[in-house]
């Protein structure tokens, strides 16, 4: 089993109309054994910027800590938040620094840029950026996610519809992957506020939601 499949993960981000959604599964495994069902893979950098990290969980956590460190220093020096494009360049540079002994994680970055235009991108473990206008996926369930997102995605969806779409895409993809699942964590970011939903996996594929405060 490859190092990227050690913990199992599924991540997706989608662009809607003046909003974006980023979703992840909640399973943490050690090979085939499930060890936690509430694992957090999506982290907030600032109000309008989120990063999800798939792959090896320890590397995901370390990357997150390093990025928060860099961003806090940036905020203090420049007295402003980082733009998502700038942040993506920073993540890419940090990953490439470890070119010959990399972090085994694949980030998914989603944020609202200048004029609140949604921005999403993903990159491989060495920092090769992949910008997209519609959706990006990452993790052990990525092949299913590509298929599900491709068929379910429509451009310019409103926030409600975007939430439904990304939830269904995530839940149906993780069903086809034994290493990810146990529900989903969806964050929907609009101009005004962020909605965070925890999806409970249900036999009948009807996502039952618990709203986070």
């Amino acid at each position, binding site marked *: 089993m490859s190092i990227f499949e050690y913990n199992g993960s599924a991540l997706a981000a989608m662009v809607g109309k003046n909003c974006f959604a980023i979703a992840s599964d909640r399973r943490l495994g050690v090979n085939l054994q499930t060890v936690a069902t509430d694992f957090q893979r999506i982290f907030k950098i600032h109000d309008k910027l989120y990063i999800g990290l798939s792959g090896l969980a320890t590397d995901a956590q370390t990357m997150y800590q390093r990025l928060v460190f860099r961003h806090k220093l940036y905020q203090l*020096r*420049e007295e402003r938040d*980082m*733009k998502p*494009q*700038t942040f993506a*360049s*920073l993540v890419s*540079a940090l990953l490439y620094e470890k070119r010959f002994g990399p972090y085994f994680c694949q980030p998914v970055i989603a944020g609202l840029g200048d004029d609140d235009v949604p921005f999403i991108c993903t990159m491989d473990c060495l920092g090769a950026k992949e910008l997209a206008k519609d959706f990006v996926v990452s993790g052990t369930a990525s092949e299913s996610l590509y298929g599900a997102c491709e068929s379910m995605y429509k451009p310019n969806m409103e926030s409600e519809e975007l939430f439904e779409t990304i939830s269904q895409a995530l839940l149906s993809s993780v069903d086809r992957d034994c290493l990810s699942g146990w529900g989903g964590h969806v964050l929907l970011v609009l101009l005004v506020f962020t909605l965070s939903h925890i999806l409970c996996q249900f036999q009948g594929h009807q996502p039952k939601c618990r709203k986070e405060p």
Partner: protein
Amino acid sequence: MGDSQYSFSLTTFSPTGKLVQIEHALTAVGSGQTSLGIKAANGVVIATEKKLPSILVDETSVQKIQLMTTNIGVVYSGMGPDSRVLVRKSRKQAQQYFRLYKEPIPVTQLVRETAAVMQEFTQSGGVRPFGVSLLVAGYDDNGPQLYQVDPSGSYFSWKASAMGKNVSNAKTFLEKRYTDDMELDDAVHTAILTLKEGFQGQISGKNIEIGIVGADRKFRVLTPAEIDDYLAEVE
């Protein structure tokens, strides 16, 4: 009195709490050729005298105003070679910033890093402070900005400032002439008039240098022909 006994070492404070070497560095700046900068509503202009030691010097080869990035330029008063070292280091820092963030460096950040370099040279062994004060002019997302950086490493943001010989007259002149809603062209005229105040000899496009950056965010040094045009307007 006791100060002079402490002027041998840069890294030793005098009893009056001064680093005498930095004071001497400021004196070196004060005897350099006059330079000034004016921040207008839609851009910044920096200018300097370009007095050459002899008429045999090829004035087209001398450039005192230099670019740090495409939208940030700098002029100095004091020792030319010292300013070249600083410009080189600042250019590298600006490019490193761009390589990391893929975003052009904000003017305040570049000024801060340049000032940090100058401060390093006031606290290390075996080095001397830079004998230049820099006027950094740039246009970024926060609009037009003008900063002065001293040999000690302190930096200040100015609406208009002057350095070098004749600094007090120049500053008084600028204080009288400066208005907050000046346009870039007015600022260039004011800069020329200020230089003219203390100029010995006939002012022309060949013995002053002017650099401007406007809302297009492209810093450029005016050609002698353009300067002559402005001079004609001023007459």
